[in-house]
C-alpha cells in the first residue's frame, strides 16, 4: 500500500511549465460531483424549522452535547498533534526495515469503519480487554467515561494528522535542515527552528482535519464509550438519538454541526491568509 503524497509542485517547476488547464469535458462530472456534495447540505437547510430553531439548539441536552463535542475534539486534536508530529517525523525522515508496513498499519484507522475501531478499542482498554486487567489494578476504568470518547476520537483522527504532515515533511525536503546542521544547530534546534516552521501549513491542515474528524466521530464512540448526556453523548450521538423522537431537533443540530465545521475551516483559512 503506498500513499499519495500531498503537496503542490515546487514553485520553480510551476513557473517553467505553461498552464494547460483541464480538458473541457471534466467540468461536467466535476459539476455533478459538486452538486452531489452541496445539494444534501442545502436540503438540510431547507428542512430546518426556523421558528423553533433556537429553542431546539439551546436545550439542555443540545448544549451539553455541543460543549462535550468541542471539549473532546479539542483534546483529541492536541493528542493527535502530540503523538502525530513525532510519528510523521519518524515516517518521513528515517528509513528502517518494515517502515512501509508500519505506515500502512498506522494509517489503517483511515480506511477502517469506525465501529471496527470501537470494537478494537473495547477489546484493548475495556474491562475484559487486553489491558483491562492491568488498568483495573491501577484503578483506571476507561469505559463509559469522557476519556473513552477522547480515545475513540484520537484513534480515528490521528492518521489524518500523520498523513498530511508526512506529506508536508517530504515536500519541504531536508536541504534547510542540512544547512542548519552544518551551521552547528543540534537536532532539536533544527526540528524547532527549521523543520516545524517549514511544515506549519501542513501541520495546521492536519490539525484541522483531525479536529473535524473528531467532531464527526460516531461509530467508535457509541461502540466504545457509550452514550450519556454530558459524559459521553457527543453531538453526533445526540443527533442520532433525537432522530428517534424529534426529527426537527435532529435537523437543527445537524445544521449546528455543519456550521461549527465551516467555522473551523474558515478560521484556519483566515489565519493562513493573514
Amino acid at each position, binding site marked *: 500500500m503506498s500513499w499519495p503524497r500531498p503537496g503542490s509542485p515546487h514553485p520553480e517547476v510551476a513557473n517553467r511549465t505553461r498552464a494547460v488547464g483541464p480538458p473541457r469535458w471534466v467540468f461536467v462530472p466535476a459539476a455533478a460531483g459538486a452538486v452531489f456534495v452541496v445539494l444534501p447540505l442545502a436540503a438540510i437547510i431547507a428542512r430546518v424549522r426556523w421558528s423553533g430553531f433556537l429553542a431546539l439548539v439551546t436545550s439542555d441536552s443540545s448544549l451539553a452535547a455541543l460543549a462535550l463535542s468541542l471539549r473532546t475534539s479539542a483534546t483529541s486534536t492536541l493528542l493527535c498533534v502530540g503523538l502525530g508530529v513525532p510519528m510523521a517525523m519518524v515516517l518521513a525522515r528515517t528509513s528502517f526495515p518494515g517502515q512501509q508496513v508500519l505506515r500502512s498499519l498506522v494509517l489503517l484507522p483511515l480506511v477502517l469503519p469506525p465501529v471496527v475501531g470501537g470494537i478494537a478499542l473495547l477489546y484493548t482498554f475495556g474491562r475484559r480487554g487486553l489491558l483491562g486487567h492491568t488498568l483495573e489494578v491501577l484503578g483506571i476504568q476507561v469505559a463509559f467515561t469522557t476519556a473513552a470518547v477522547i480515545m475513540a476520537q484520537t484513534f480515528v483522527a490521528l492518521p489524518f494528522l500523520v498523513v498530511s504532515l508526512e*506529506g*508536508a515533511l517530504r515536500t519541504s525536503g531536508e536541504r534547510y535542515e542540512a544547512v542548519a546542521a552544518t551551521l552547528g544547530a543540534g537536532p532539536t534546534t533544527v526540528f524547532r527552528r527549521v523543520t516545524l516552521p517549514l511544515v506549519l501549513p501542513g501541520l495546521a491542515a492536519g490539525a484541522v482535519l483531525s479536529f473535524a474528524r473528531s467532531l464527526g466521530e460516531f461509530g467508535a464512540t457509541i461502540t466504545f464509550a457509550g452514550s450519556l448526556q454530558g459524559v459521553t453523548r457527543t453531538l453526533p450521538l445526540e443527533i442520532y438519538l433525537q432522530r428517534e423522537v424529534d426529527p426537527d431537533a435532529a435537523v437543527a443540530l445537524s445544521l449546528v454541526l455543519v456550521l461549527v465545521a465551516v467555522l473551523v475551516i474558515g478560521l484556519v483559512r483566515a489565519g493562513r491568509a493573514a
Partner: protein
Amino acid sequence: MKRWAASVVAVLLIGTAAGCGSGRSSGTSSGSPSGSPRQTLTVFAAASLTSTFTKLGREFEAAHKGVKVSFSFAGSSDLVAQIEQGAPADVLASADTKNMDEAVSAKVVENKPVAFASNTLEIAVPPDNPAGVTSLKDLATPSTKVVVCAPQVPCGAAARKVEQIAKVRITPVSEEQAVTDVLTKVESGEADAGLVYLTDVRAAGGKVKGLTFPQSSSAVNTYPIAALKKSKHATLANDFVNLVTSTEGRSVLAAAGFAAP
C-alpha cells in the same frame, strides 16, 4: 495557502476513496440459486424480530412458489420514517404500538394493525454476574455499572416505566440507542447489568444470564403488524400477516421468547 489546500484535498481524496471501498453496504438483493423468483415481498420489521421473521420468511417462500421475501430490519421509528418517505415496503411489523400508530396516522397502512406478540424486560448480567445482581433494586447500587436504553427509544421507555413502578432509581453509566447496544455492553463485560428484552437474553444464548423481576409486567411491549397501502402485492402481504398471526407463526415467536400479545 496553496499547499495547505492541496494537503486537505489529498487527504480527503484518500478518505473518500477508502470510504467508497468499505462503504459498500450488504444489500438485501441476492440471486436465488434456481431461477429468479418472479415476485419479491418486502417486509420492514423491527430489529428484534430478525431471527424469527427470517425463519417465517423461509416458511413463506416454501409455501409460495416463485416468491422471495426480502427483509429490512431496523429500529421501528427508522422504518416508519423510511416508509413515510416512500420506501417500497409491503408489510410493516413494529416493536411498539407508538410507531405503528404513527404509520397509521400517516395513512400508509392498509388495514387495522394486528398485535401478534409481546415482550417484557429482563435484567441481563454477564454469566459470572460480577456485581452479584439479583433484583431490580440491586441496579440502584452506585458501584454497579448499569446500561439501559435511552428513554427516547421503546426499550428505554419501558425501563423508565418499571423504574417508576418499582420505585427504584437507576443511575446508568450509559443510555444506549438500541437494545442490542445494551446487550453487547453486558456481553463484553463492560457493564455489570443491563435492562433488555427477554427475547434478547434468549437470543444471546449463554453469553448473558437473564434475571426476571416482578415489575416487568408493568411495561409490556406489544408488536403490531400491518400490510401497507403502497404494496403492489396486496394478497401476498396479507398472506404474510396471516402467517405471522397464525399458530405456526405463534410457535416460532414463542420459541424465541415472545409472549402472546
